[in-house]
């Protein structure tokens, strides 16, 4: 039995856009990404808007077509090659891989009761025989998400943001998935509630043996919940490492800049040293060489000419021509 639940190699997702008369441009949302997600891990994926993190998550759920490369899923019971899934296998994969959305206000139908919202996946996928069994499964998962019988009879509008997100979680988990992609699942919540939902996700992971891919732009949240983190920029994977290694000694200049951009709670902490200028380039108009060179304070000629490959050292991968040199120059 392999240790990894998901193994993606050279995965790309390209969208054709704005068909001119002769030229069809390609939007490279995810380009040549290789990642491995271990069973039972909480895998964090960070990056700015437009970095391709959501598209990567969706590709692994088979919700957007994979353009090239491979993604292998193996949970010990079944093994699938995601780029070739169809028919009954795809249907089965849908019960094993699920998504929790960002906005709990938009994700729940206002016309359905909470019970019906949570039961819908079971009915659509035909996973239960009869209403009694459906009700039992709904009640069980609702209880795990701290929703009681009284809650199940009500409509979403009667709930607060935190409660709604617990309903979304119950709906995602009711089919008994092994792999769950949580896409910015706490971003819309207030801090006081956010911690509660994060603790619940961790607890469910333990109890149900889930593997999470946790997509977020909030590094402090990722640092506290994930055991492995991957950083994306403009469709590329630029750095990946166990959380502690990454946060103790980030190697990529972009990761370092991300860290220093987090507003500190200490009013006297003036982190102006590594502020990034400019913005992420458009994915349809990507710079040559390293994708980060337009904003990188350390870019030299080779960065403009050649795209760096991912280099591994001590289980910590980074795609930067100068990382070693920079680590010795600038103490992290």
């Amino acid at each position: 039995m392999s240790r990894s639940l998901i193994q993606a190699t050279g995965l790309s997702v390209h969208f054709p856009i704005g068909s001119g008369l002769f030229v069809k441009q390609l939007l490279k949302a995810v380009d040549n990404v290789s990642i491995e997600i271990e069973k039972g891990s909480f895998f964090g994926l960070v990056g700015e808007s437009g970095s391709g993190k959501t598209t990567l998550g969706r590709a692994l759920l088979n919700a957007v077509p994979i353009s090239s490369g491979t993604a292998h899923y193996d949970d010990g019971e079944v093994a699938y090659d995601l780029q070739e899934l169809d028919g009954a296998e795809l249907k089965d994969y849908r019960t094993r891989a699920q998504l929790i959305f960002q906005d709990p206000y938009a994700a729940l139908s206002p016309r359905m009761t909470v019970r019906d919202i949570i039961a819908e996946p079971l009915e659509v996928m035909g996973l239960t025989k009869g209403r009694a069994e459906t009700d039992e499964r709904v009640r069980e998962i609702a209880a795990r998400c701290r929703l009681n019988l009284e809650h199940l009879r009500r409509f979403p509008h009667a709930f607060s943001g935190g409660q709604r997100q617990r309903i979304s979680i119950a709906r995602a988990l009711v089919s008994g998935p092994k792999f769950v992609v949580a896409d910015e699942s706490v971003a819309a919540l207030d801090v006081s509630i956010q911690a509660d939902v994060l603790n619940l996700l961790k607890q469910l992971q333990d109890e149900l043996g889930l593997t999470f891919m946790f997509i977020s732009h909030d590094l402090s949240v990722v640092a506290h919940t994930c055991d492995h983190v991957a950083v994306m920029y403009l469709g590329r994977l630029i750095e990946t490492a166990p959380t502690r290694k990454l946060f103790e000694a980030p190697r990529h200049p972009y990761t370092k800049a991300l860290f220093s951009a987090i507003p500190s709670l200490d009013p006297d902490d003036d982190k102006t040293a590594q502020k990034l200028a400019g913005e992420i380039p458009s994915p349809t108009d990507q710079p040559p060489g390293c994708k980060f060179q337009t904003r990188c304070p350390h870019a030299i000629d080779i960065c403009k000419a050649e795209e760096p490959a991912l280099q591994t050292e001590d289980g910590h991968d980074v795609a930067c021509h100068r990382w070693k040199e920079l680590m010795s120059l600038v103490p992290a």
Partner: protein
Amino acid sequence: MTPLIEVESLTLQFRTDEGLITAVEDVSFTLMKGEVMGLVGESGSGKSVTAKSLMHLNARNAVYSPESRITLHTDTGPVDVLSLRTPRELNVVRGGAISMIFQEPMASFAPAITIGKQMVEQLLLHSDMSKGTAKSVSIEMLDRVGISDAARRFDQYAFELSGGMRQRAMIAMALSTNPSLLIADEPTTALDVTIQAQVIDLMKDLVSEFGMGIIFITHDLGVVAQTADRVNVMYLGRLVEEGPVREVIRNPRHPYTQGLIAALPKLEDLDAPLTPVPGDIPSPLERPAGCVFNTRCSQVVGEECMALVPTNCRLDETHSVACHIYREAAE
């Protein structure tokens, strides 16, 4: 320092089908000239409604209590904001002496009118500039907030600008009328963290350059720590703690403020467990009696928390808190 705007006993309710809903209750504060005040609280705490009251901008079904008073000090004397009625009078607080930056810059610009035209329009409305002057002032402001190639951007539409750029244009537009008070409602929430850092730096620069007062509304205590001089913490329509930013963040006194800070994931200590504030903010239709925080408070001291609304206790000259824990200490 002279006061810029004084809010006294502001109480605001909305008339709805389900009855009167209290959004803001007995809120008082004073903002000095050139001061940056952070207004913090979770969704539903009434921070945006409070800010909009300063411009008399709340929906038609808003009912202000008779004791509510908002006084804006302008060069031509004090203005009683809540007594303004006609559009001409209201112009003073809507884009004249007070400007506002909203959270979602895409939604705040009209999509079918160029950025430049919108900037010029408000300058013509609020000053006696000619069209030509208004245009050059606008381009100058766009340049000042760090938009490269400002003359070209002036003729572009909001959709042609990136998120960070749009927020800069929004700031340029808000500042071009030279307001004495700027209200920024979650101006960086929709932005990426690297862009947020740029916008925060920009706003800091502008404060020292233009010297206007700023009310910075946010739910992010980190952003407040980096921008504000003073913080007001709101919960369910009430001001629960008020003080200098260092004091409130390093030495929070209200159980809610303490809870907010404890709930923040901290990068310095990855092993620290995340501690949520238990429970959810109650619906405004079910406001608790006594202290509004009593349904989630872990430090309830006794019957008075359930029955009596805590009064404001001054801990020292600048730091005050509305909580029964500190009542005896203050007496």
